[in-house]
């Protein structure tokens, strides 16, 4: 495979791989089948657990990862978001350009708050990288939607896309994630299975798949946990009943 300028994308592969098969004492393998593994303990974790129970597991784990947890309804969602924004004394928000903001009737609320001078509202603009990054860097809050949510580890899985910039969940001081309750699954196993199946079907997967569990942290100084390092200093999850 070559680049536009005719340069090989893969360099020095053959001699490298031939050396490996030689050391392994056999010819190069051109076809193999991944065996069925003997055990599968991952499938037993939170097996046959209801959506409500998964939500409770998620809530409990949020405590362990310094993340605020709120439950709400569709009707109350925008109020809950505003309360959460106020809780962090935030004055500016950047969101993804994502149709879910319209389907949950949030873009109109955000526009109203902006007009009323309550909070400055920006949407990620993929046409202008530098400006979008600069806005995200200044913003107090990055507001996103979880694509898949892992109960066990209280993890939101975010797939990057044109309107879903990586910076929105990374650069602002606080990351607020809206979690539609239907996106909650037991653990990483279900999310990676979904990605694996997409790959097996020949579909294109996102260039960046973020599994995010709470705010950034570090224990590099005398093993003391400090919450908030390079990524957001605070994280809040808002679970909305979308049934």
């Amino acid at each position: 495979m070559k680049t536009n300028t005719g340069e090989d994308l893969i360099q020095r592969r053959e001699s490298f791989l031939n050396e490996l098969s030689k050391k392994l004492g056999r010819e190069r393998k051109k076809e193999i089948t991944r065996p069925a593994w003997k055990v599968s303990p991952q499938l037993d974790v939170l097996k046959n657990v209801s959506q409500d129970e998964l939500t409770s597991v998620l809530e409990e784990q949020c405590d362990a990862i310094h993340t605020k947890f709120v439950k709400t309804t569709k009707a109350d969602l925008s109020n809950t978001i505003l309360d959460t924004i106020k809780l962090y004394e935030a004055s500016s928000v950047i969101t993804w350009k994502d149709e879910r903001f319209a389907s949950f009737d949030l873009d109109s609320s955000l526009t109203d708050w902006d007009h009323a001078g309550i909070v400055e509202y920006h949407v990620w603009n993929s046409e202008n990288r530098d400006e979008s990054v600069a806005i995200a860097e200044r913003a107090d809050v990055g507001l996103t939607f979880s694509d898949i949510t892992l109960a066990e580890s209280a993890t939101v899985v975010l797939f990057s896309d044109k309107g879903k910039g990586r910076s929105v969940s990374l650069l602002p001081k606080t990351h607020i994630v809206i979690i539609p309750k239907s996106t909650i699954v037991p653990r990483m196993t279900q999310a990676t299975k979904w990605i694996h199946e997409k790959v097996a079907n020949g579909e294109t997967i996102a260039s960046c798949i973020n599994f995010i569990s709470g705010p950034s942290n570090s224990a590099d100084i005398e093993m003391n946990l400090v919450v908030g390092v390079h990524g957001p200093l605070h994280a809040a999850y808002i679970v909305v009943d979308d049934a």
Partner: protein
Amino acid sequence: MGMHIGDKQFDKRRDEGLHDGFMRQAVRSAQTRLQTNRSKAADALGGWESWRELGEEIRTHTLENIDYYLEQLSDEVAKRGGHVFFAQTKEEANEYIQNIAKEKEAKYIAKSKSMVTEEIGLNDALEQIGCEVVETDLGEYILQIDDHDPPSHIVAPALHKNKAQIRDVFKEKLGYEHTEKPEELTLFARETLREKFLQADIGITGCNFAVAESGSFALVTNEGNARMVTTLPKTQVTVMGMERIVPTWEDLDIMVSLLTRASVGQKLTSYVTGLTGPKLEGEADGPEEFHLVIVDNGRSDILGTEFQSILHCIRCAACINVCPVYRHIGGHAYGSIYPGPVGAVLTPLLGGYDDYEELPFASSLCGACTEVCPVKIPLHEHLISHRRHIIEEDKRGTFSENLMMKGFGTLAKSSGKFNTATKFASTGAKPFVRDGMIEKGPGPLKDWTINRDMMPPQKQRFRDWYKKREG
């Protein structure tokens, strides 16, 4: 810097460790905390032994078919428009990355934590051509600004430093004016490094696991610096040791679940970031250009040998966190960026017995490392194999060791002589006993008794005691 750290002999490094009171206290408390967290997390998961078995099975299969999976990985990266360079040596890897930096006329390079780039000495190579390279992991950053103090642990590199020392380094090198509180030190690093992320021309990362089926790779982190490095710079270079690969995303689940629990006792780290190629068309952030550099640097020589399973290692440091020898001598004593039991096995394989023949002996063979390894690498058995190679085959043992081994061989072969020798051990040791302990032993006991006393041989032998007990 390369894999080798420090320039003294092993016994000097060891003694320095033994006499460093702060470091030993720091290591003890870190080990205790990490061990406790690990075992709590393993218990909470349930079926830990099944998980380990699965981890071992996946790693064994992957390494047995490593040529196939690396071919698949590189094909998939190229399909997404990424570049792949296979580097047999560290020189090849460094030269390739230097050329990228030259081509991009890069001034500033931001790096997230990576053991393999330490191993190949990439920072030096890039600084030689005039780039400014910034380590952005907090621990690595502290070490870098402290005149490149070497790491002493593969997960917590600055474990040997206390907060007052860190405050002094920040003050002296960066004009820091606040207290030694970890929160304030961290906030200062956040603000200082934010600028570096925004101005970086190239981002360089390591790789926890590549995923062959989709040409992806995953970074397992907590601080968010690896996300910065893969979001903001326009060019991204990822360097991976050739064995750091899994077949599919489903296998990635297992390896990450084992890694985060075994290393720090977390269910997942704050960030597990799965990246595939450069950014897709229409996306604004993420790199425009992506290079994956796959490094051999001595690893292929381990394939097909009795040591092959050391390539299964996922760099969790669980073995380091339970090792009683590491507890006493600390990371720097190993003379390698890979310390502890994994280092004692891997370092001599990558760096040769000439420089590292002492390391396999820096172990009590208690087997705690093997017991906690999440992918069931028989670490202490590898240490025994090393010892056999060093002493029996290569005749590299010290003179008194050879004499002792030879003597022991003769004695053990003849039950009469063995009985005599063990019976007389108690009497023979008498001149060395003070207050019931041997404080200054002769010959092979000398090194042992420099730092601790030894029990003299018992008057009654185990064999005799056992016989009497039966009767």
